[in-house]
C-alpha cells in the first residue's frame, strides 16, 4: 500500500482536528469563578479560612480557638515539645511569615502571635507522598482529609508539609488527654494527625470549632468559589497574605495583616 503526499497531509490534518476536539471539553470544564491557575472542585466548592491578625493583637494570652479545637478533637498534651501534637497553634509573625519579615517591621505586628494550622493546600505535597492515601484532598470541597484507619505512620507527609502542620503520635495519646470528648475518636500510637477543618462539624452544618470559639471574631470560614461569600468579600476589601506562597502549594488559609 502506497501513500502519496496529498493523502498523508489530509490524514495528519484530520488527526490534529480530532485531538483538538477531544481535549476541548476537558479544558472548558475546569473553568470556575476562581482566578486562573487555581483548581476548581467538581461541585464548585472550595472551603477556606481567613484570619484577621489585626484582631489578635493586644488580646494577651487568648487561646480560645486552640482550646476549643484541641478539646473537640481529643488532642493530647504530653507536656514536652518533642512529642507535641498540635492542630492549631501560635507562631511569631517572623516565624510564620519569614518571607515577609524584615528588621523595620511594625513592632506590634512583629510580636503579634499568628495562628497557624493546616493550610488545606490546593496542591498539597503531603497527599502526593502518602503511600496509602491515608491523606487525600476531598473532591467536593478541597479539604485535605486524614483517614486514621489507613495511616501506617511512615511520616512522609510530615517531611513533605512545608508548614509543620502535621504531628506524629510517638506514644499512646489517650492517657494524656485532659478531658475526653466522647463524640470524636482519639488516635493510637504510630499515627499522624492534623487539622481537618472540622469536617465532622461541617457535616452537621456547624462552623469549625476555632471559628466558633473566637470571641474577637478574627477567624472566618467559607466557600471561596462563592463570589458572595463573607471570605471572598474580606479578601477583596483587605490586603491579605499567605504562608510561603512561593512554594506553589496554594495554601487556602489567608491572613489579613
Amino acid at each position, binding site marked *: 500500500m502506497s501513500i502519496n503526499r496529498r493523502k498523508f497531509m489530509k490524514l495528519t490534518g484530520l488527526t490534529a482536528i480530532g485531538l483538538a476536539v477531544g481535549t476541548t471539553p476537558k479544558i472548558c470544564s475546569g473553568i470556575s469563578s476562581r482566578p486562573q491557575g487555581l483548581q476548581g472542585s467538581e461541585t464548585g466548592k472550595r472551603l477556606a479560612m481567613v484570619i484577621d491578625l489585626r484582631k489578635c493583637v493586644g488580646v494577651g494570652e487568648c487561646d480560645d480557638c486552640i482550646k476549643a479545637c484541641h478539646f473537640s478533637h481529643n488532642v493530647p498534651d504530653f507536656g514536652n515539645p518533642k512529642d507535641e501534637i498540635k492542630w492549631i497553634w501560635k507562631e511569631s509573625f517572623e516565624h510564620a511569615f519569614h518571607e515577609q519579615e524584615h528588621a523595620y517591621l511594625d513592632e506590634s505586628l512583629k510580636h503579634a502571635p499568628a495562628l497557624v494550622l493546616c493550610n488545606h493546600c490546593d496542591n498539597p505535597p503531603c497527599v502526593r507522598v502518602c503511600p496509602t492515601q491515608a491523606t487525600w484532598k*476531598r473532591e*467536593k470541597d478541597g479539604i485535605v*482529609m486524614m*483517614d*486514621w*484507619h489507613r495511616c501506617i505512620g511512615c511520616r512522609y507527609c510530615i517531611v513533605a508539609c512545608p508548614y509543620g502542620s502535621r504531628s506524629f503520635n510517638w506514644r499512646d495519646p489517650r492517657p494524656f488527654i485532659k478531658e*475526653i470528648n*466522647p*463524640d*470524636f*475518636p*482519639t*488516635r*493510637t500510637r504510630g499515627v499522624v494527625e492534623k487539622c481537618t477543618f472540622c*469536617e465532622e462539624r461541617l*457535616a452537621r452544618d456547624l462552623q469549625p470549632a476555632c471559628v466558633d470559639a473566637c470571641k474577637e471574631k478574627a477567624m472566618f470560614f467559607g466557600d471561596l468559589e462563592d463570589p458572595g461569600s463573607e471570605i471572598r468579600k474580606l479578601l477583596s476589601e483587605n490586603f491579605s497574605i499567605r504562608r510561603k506562597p512561593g512554594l506553589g502549594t496554594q495554601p487556602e488559609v489567608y491572613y489579613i495583616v
Partner: protein
Amino acid sequence: MYDAGKIIIGLIIFFVLITFPIWYNMASGEALDVPELEKAAKGEQCVRDTDYMTTNHMDLLNEWRDQVVRDGERYETGPDGVTYERSLSKTCLDCHVNKDKFCDRCHNYAAVDPYCWDCHIDSKELQ
C-alpha cells in the same frame, strides 16, 4: 524398628500434650458454653437482620467506615424507612448499651481482638 516401645510411648505423650487445649476445653465444658449476649436495650430492629449481623458485622462496619470517612456519607435509610447515622459509638452502642456484655463478651470467646476501641470511645466507660 528399634526401641519401638519407647518411640510409641513418646509419640503418645507428644500427641496428648499437643492436643491438650482441645481436650481440656472439651472436658471442662468451657468451650461449649456459648456466651449469652445481652439483648439490645431499645430499638425493635437492627440495621440488618440478626443472622447477617452475627456473621458479617465486621464487614458492615468496614463499609460504614469507608463511606463516612472517604465519601462523607454519614446517614443511611433502612428498608423500614428509618434513617440512622453510620456510627459505631453512637448508633450501635445506642441500643447495645453494654459494650462489655455484647461486643467484648463474644470477642473474648472467639479470641479476636479488634482495634475499634483503641480510638473510638464508649462514653459510658468514661464515667
